[in-house]
């Protein structure tokens, strides 16, 4: 009963799920796996990554578009999720390689010798061979998957609790979250951070235990997993923002003081939204980086979180499909322009090369969107709907 009314209230959810499902099926059928091979493996990976970016964009939309907290730290949570899964991927794969190479020895290796050899393989690049404390659970997939959820969640919980209880709001909160992101990125850049510093974690596209499976198959598996995660995330957030809770959250966005005077404990709502979205960002990151193959601290830099806000703003804040459209549109367009896919424009006296000028275009179009289309691309749907009625 409850479920039906929720879906009835949100026709867009059904629409979105159907479109996503059709899209997923089409891509799968056209991929290398079925033998049709119309979509290359690398493009399947790009699409899978884009779906993960859409998921984190939805999270960003909930925290910013619905709750009014412009967090410039959600891409950091995304990165933490990637690091958490990356630690297991890297550890397990290196363990496999090390065990194989030690198998030929005349006497079996002791656990200490195995651990030393793995440590040497992983941390040799930063001149160390000891496992730092944070790698304590790296050998266990289940615990490390738990870390994907727990670490961003705990960080968001502690940070949010500190910030919200001292009533840091608006741009101050944005700057504070940006500072948090910067601190995290700077920390990870150090060689003794225990996460291989500047080198980051690499070789994540190889899934331990599935060495025999081709990248084409793996890419489709991750693509479908990303699509499922996106669909689930969409339904979950649509449910959160639609009920009574959604009304309170939107009330906080529009006038925090008034909601507080109505007797709601504003801080708890904000903290819930902030933490939940951070966890979803972490999950999105954990799905993204095995497809990207490498993660390094540069990915977490404050600018990435700002781009996230850019996607949501261009797509249209305060509507979940807007965030999806924005993230997919801008990130695919961005890789088309910077990847040299866009034709250069010859002005006669000057050739505009899009690899150089794309960011200029993006920056100014962003100003234009903010000034003239505050509802973003999603606003176009409103116009369509209004014309029909």
């Amino acid at each position: 009963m409850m479920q039906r009314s929720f879906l009835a209230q949100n026709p867009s959810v059904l629409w979105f799920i159907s479109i996503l499902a059709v899209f997923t099926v089409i891509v799968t059928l056209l991929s290398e796996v079925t033998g049709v091979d119309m979509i290359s493996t690398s493009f399947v990976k790009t699409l899978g990554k884009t779906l993960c970016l859409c998921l984190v964009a939805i999270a960003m939309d909930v925290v910013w578009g619905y709750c009014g907290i412009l967090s410039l730290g959600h891409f950091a949570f995304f990165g933490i999720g990637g690091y958490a899964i990356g630690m297991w991927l890297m550890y397990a794969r290196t363990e496999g390689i090390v065990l194989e190479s030690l198998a030929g020895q005349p006497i079996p290796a002791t656990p200490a010798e195995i651990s030393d050899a793995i440590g040497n393989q992983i941390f040799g690049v930063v001149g160390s061979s000891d496992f730092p404390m944070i790698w304590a659970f790296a050998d266990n997939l289940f615990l490390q998957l738990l870390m994907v959820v727990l670490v961003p969640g705990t960080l968001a919980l502690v940070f949010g609790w500190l910030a919200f209880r001292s009533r840091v709001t608006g741009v101050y909160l944005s700057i504070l979250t940006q500072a948090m992101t910067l601190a995290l990125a700077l920390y990870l850049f150090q060689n003794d951070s225990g996460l291989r510093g500047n080198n980051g974690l690499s070789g994540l596209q190889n899934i331990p235990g599935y060495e025999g499976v081709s990248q084409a198959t793996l890419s489709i598996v991750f693509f479908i997993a990303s699509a499922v995660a996106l669909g689930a995330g969409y339904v979950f957030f649509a449910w959160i923002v639609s009920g009574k809770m959604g009304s309170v959250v939107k009330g906080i966005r529009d006038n925090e003081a008034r909601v507080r005077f109505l007797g709601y404990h504003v801080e708890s709502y904000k903290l819930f939204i902030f933490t939940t979205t951070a966890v979803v960002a972490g999950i999105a990151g954990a799905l993204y980086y095995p497809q990207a193959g490498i993660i390094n601290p540069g990915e977490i830099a404050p600018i990435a979180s700002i781009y996230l806000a850019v996607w949501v703003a261009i797509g249209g804040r305060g509507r979940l499909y807007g965030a999806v459209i924005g993230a997919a549109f801008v990130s695919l367009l961005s890789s088309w322009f910077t990847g040299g896919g866009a034709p250069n424009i010859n002005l006669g006296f000057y050739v505009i090369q899009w690899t150089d000028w794309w960011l200029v275009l993006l920056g100014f179009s962003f100003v234009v969107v903010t000034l003239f289309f505050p509802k973003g691309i999603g606003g176009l749907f409103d116009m369509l709907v209004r014309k029909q009625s």
Partner: protein
Amino acid sequence: MLRRYILALVLLFAQPIGANAQTLQDILQTHQEEVLKPGRRTVGVVLDDLVASGLPQAVPFLEAWRDREIVQRESDGLFFAVAEDGDTVALRDLDTNEVQTTAPDTALTEARPNGGVRRAIGDALVQFQLSDPDIEKRQAAVNAIARSMDASQLAPLQASIEAESDAALLAQKERLVGMLNASFADSTQDRIAAIEALSGDLSVDVRAVMNTILATSAHVALTVPDGANVAQILDVGTDLTPAEAYDRLVAAELAPPLVPKSAIREALIANISDGSVGGVAVAELNTDAARETAYDALAAAGSVEPRVTTQAQADAVAAHIFYLSYDEPDPSITDVTRTALTAIETKVGLSQTVDLGLDALSLASIYFLAAIGLAITFGVMGVINMAHGEFIMMGAYTGFVVQQFVPDYTLSIIIALPLAFAITFGAGVAMERLVIRHLYHRPLETLLATFGISIALQQLAKNIFGTQARPLTSPEWLDGALVFNDVIAISYIRIAIFVLALIFLALILYVLKRTRLGLEVRAVTQNPGMAASMGINPDRINMLTFGLGSGIAGIAGVAIGLYAKVTSEMGADYIVQSFMTVVVGGVGNVWGTLAGASLIGFLQKGIEWLNPSNTLAAQTYMILFIILFIQFRPKGIVALKGRAAAD
């Protein structure tokens, strides 16, 4: 040059009047064998005679000898310097220094001093060079001594002091003699006096001399021997771990060596028979305990060395005494040196604190300069401008472009400062009119729109100027540093930035508090509606204020460009710190920005001092500190009170 000429003349004429009118050739003839095939021991005789003779032509001879350019004519045994090499060699007379004769290559024997001898010759040369008429050669000789001090240099250096005419070099020589005396003087009294005389000197080389005197070496024995100048008795467990202690015992051959894990493994592999070692199956050897059991079984059978038991290790360590003793045997000297070194180190510590303070002050003034424009646009007007960093960058590139047209660095800086202000003022006004004005009541969107401008400007700068760093050269009078002593020094450019920061502080305070514009700015900030009803045009005031804040960012850009490289990303490096500075200091208050910049500058330097190897970690901890700080003082250090504080 004239002085050198005269000196050479004097030497030339003085020599024949000297007691023994011997020539260089005479001396060399008495030591034919040693000159031709010098050994490290035999060369001393020749060198002593040469030094004793005091002949000026000995110096070019020694140089030639060191460079293997001395030959002997086989027909009569006379020595010559090679003037021109080839099949026929031109020979230079050693006394007159004139090319006298030639000889075929085959009729000559070359003197071949080896490496050790050439070093000895070099030392002897230093003694000559110490009294060389050419001040550059004397300076080089003094530098050579300072680089590697040695007892043999003391006497010649002391002898050269009296004749030294250059005051600066004399001071250096005396200081060097003091240091040499501290290490190598004959009597204990002389050394103690020399050491005490040095105790006011903070320089690194004096500290190095003292540390050499206080050098210790680690020893281990059953009891401390008599006459050892013991520096410290080491306590096993606190000063060194039991494992280290045992390693030292092994090194001193007072205990049998441990069998390392790798050796255990090797021994086990070597003794595998029928799939087991020492009664343990090979497959079970995957723990250290199992390997040790197997190894002990092998040791019991006598096929390998037994392991040293933990008990035996502990007993051996307990039976011995571990201590550090000074290499210098005389305790009175080490005592005096320790006292002197402690005094020096106290002074060095104090100076370092002052130096750190100066560093922090200059960092604080850079942060202040970067943030002061923001203090106006963000602090006073409440407009968040993420492109503020790019205004800093525009200012710096303005300086760079001006330097391309005006080659005189002083003049170009004087032109660049107002030009940078004008350009960024214009950019700020344009941005306010076109973008920010429409977003005054949507601060989060201002943040995003200005961020869009920021990435566009950054990429534009990259397209125009390229990605490599561009230099902004400071005028010559800003090169160098103001040196207070060996530890405290501050470069003039940092002083200039500090002064600039002070000027800006005064200027902005004046504009805001003492001018009509400032009054109107404050009025519009507090209540735009009321200000408008008093006849103030809020739009115009906002535009001017924003322009002023941006213009100051441009000037800050020129200053920062002088001290760091100009890149398209330089603004982004400062933007987060600048916002921190304003937020920590307290929004809406110039004094607050000053307090914030000082806090952040001193904090960062302080953390760097605690953890000197890692500036990244220092920045991380600083940002964490700021996040916590804002928890406890959300309104910053200087919080506005009363009506001004209203949102």
